[in-house]
């Protein structure tokens, strides 16, 4: 529909604005990545490229703290993502393949509750809950809180995927005497796999990145990477924090990229 000068869609200045938008989004990340390679004890002066701060993360004086925090972060993220994805897959099957039913709207409201309630409110509420049932705060409380608030993030891509799959495949299988369970595990699940993988990855990242809820429900002494980083940053931004941030940043970007390509693949054809 391009008519040169009279292109009705084009507005002058929108391209520069888009570029500005991308620069704003990426510049801080690029700057931290570059400065993580700075061979200097101060974050202000640039003294050439080196990987010494990456080495410092693994062997330096704070390495023990980071190792424990990383272990907590990754094990919690893996367990929370696995459990919440399983729960979300079952729930999505009921919501998308369960016909109309009375509690459907209520169920959807409940599933999307963690997205509507401000995170700090969820954090306060969860702290109060664990406190009042006399549960000692620590690794387990973080894990349980993460499982709960990761459910909607896993649910969204899974249910979107299931919406896009016609039920003719399962019907055909059942016409050929497959049981409902077989139709589910052998037909629906494989077709759903891209949605499930995206859901799992999103839940994983959400858990790995969470600071606010973790900060409230972690007990004394239990740290995840974000809370450990926050603790360090309070005393000033140090070069080793730049290095560990860059590594976390890379993990997130790699996982989102995988999720993007997986969700683009269409295995229903």
């Amino acid at each position: 529909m391009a008519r040169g000068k009279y292109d009705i869609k084009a507005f002058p200045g929108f391209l520069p604005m888009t570029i500005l938008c991308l620069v704003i989004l990426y510049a801080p990340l690029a700057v931290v990545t570059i400065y993580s390679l700075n061979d200097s004890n101060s974050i202000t002066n640039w003294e050439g490229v080196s990987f010494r701060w990456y080495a410092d993360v693994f062997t330096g004086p704070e390495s023990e703290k980071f190792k424990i925090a990383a272990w907590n972060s990754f094990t919690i993220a893996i367990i929370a993502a696995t459990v919440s994805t399983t729960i979300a897959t079952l729930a999505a099957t009921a919501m998308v393949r369960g016909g109309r039913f009375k509690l459907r709207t209520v169920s959807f409201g409940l599933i999307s509750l963690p997205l509507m309630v401000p995170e700090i409110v969820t954090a306060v509420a969860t702290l109060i809950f664990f406190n009042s049932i006399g549960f000692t705060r620590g690794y387990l409380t973080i894990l349980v809180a993460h499982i709960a608030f990761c459910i909607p993030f896993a649910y969204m891509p899974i249910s979107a995927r299931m919406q896009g799959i016609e039920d003719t495949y399962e019907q055909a299988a059942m016409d050929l005497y497959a049981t409902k369970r077989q139709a589910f595990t052998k037909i629906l699940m494989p077709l759903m796999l891209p949605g499930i993988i995206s859901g799992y990855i999103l839940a994983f990242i959400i858990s790995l990145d969470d600071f606010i809820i973790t900060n409230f429900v972690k007990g004394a002494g239990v740290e995840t990477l974000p809370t450990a980083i926050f603790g360090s940053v309070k005393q000033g931004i140090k070069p080793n924090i730049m290095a560990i941030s860059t590594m976390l940043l890379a993990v997130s970007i790699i996982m989102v990229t995988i999720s993007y390509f997986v969700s683009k693949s269409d295995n229903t054809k």
Partner: protein
Amino acid sequence: MAAGAASGGSAKSDTYADARTWLLLPAWAVLGIFILTPVLMMLVYSFLTKEFRGGVIWELSFAAYDQFFCSRGLFGDEPCTVEWTYINIFWRSIWQAGAATLLSLVIGFPTAYFIATRPESVRPVWVFLITIPYWVNLLIRTVSMKFMLRDQGPLNDFLISTGLIDSPIHIVNTNFAVQLGLFYSYLPFMVLPIYASVERYNFNLSEAAADLYASKMTTLRRILLPAVKPGVIAGCILVFVPSLGSFLAPDLLGGAKNFMIGSLIEEQFKGNAGNWPFGAAASMILLSMVLVILMIFARQQAKAEKGAG
């Protein structure tokens, strides 16, 4: 999108109708016990008496709400006059979140429009580029922003080297820094819904307007903007609501003078100086505000949907 999304889309079939209770049970249990029950307990806690070392005493009390709204003089025995301290913190939060929303709209609208008018095959790539930063740890993004904006940081270095300024501008620990941080945290939320509604917009309408000698700006204002308004409103809410209760941006970029709701709440639960019922009450007030905004929004979207359909 809105009406369908509000109820979670329609049921595609009823193949598993007989198993749906069992399929939903784990989700009901986990979310009911660990999200809904805690929120209700928080409501209860906001009406209890505070324990001085954190926690509560199980005695009914309106002290938390009284402390929030009422000023009772130095000895606490005067009649209630309006207490402005906390209302001002809420007011500042609304203002900061509003400024961040406006900033996101100014940058986000042209971006969303630009992406939506690209060839269909490259649009997902643009959208992907916009969403990547959202998935990077919010803490890391906020720290990066602080690093950028420091007096000796890259932004000031850059501005000095270009000769635009002579000495560094102080940005960190100002209201503006918090607005920038919030804007940076939630910018993708503005772009995506606007993008979705511009993508659905029928450009033949703009053609028709142009054929009738409407200028480009008139077409934008009178034809396009009303058509994409639901997307714009959705974007504004998606930026405004999380900004309102955010903790990291005001805490790391704002310093002590630029206190927002999130910091006020956090302070009540950290260390021994805390006041749990008061923190619960402040959380309840924040939650009520957010729910009211979301309800008005849902009603408006439903109306718009009806009008369009």
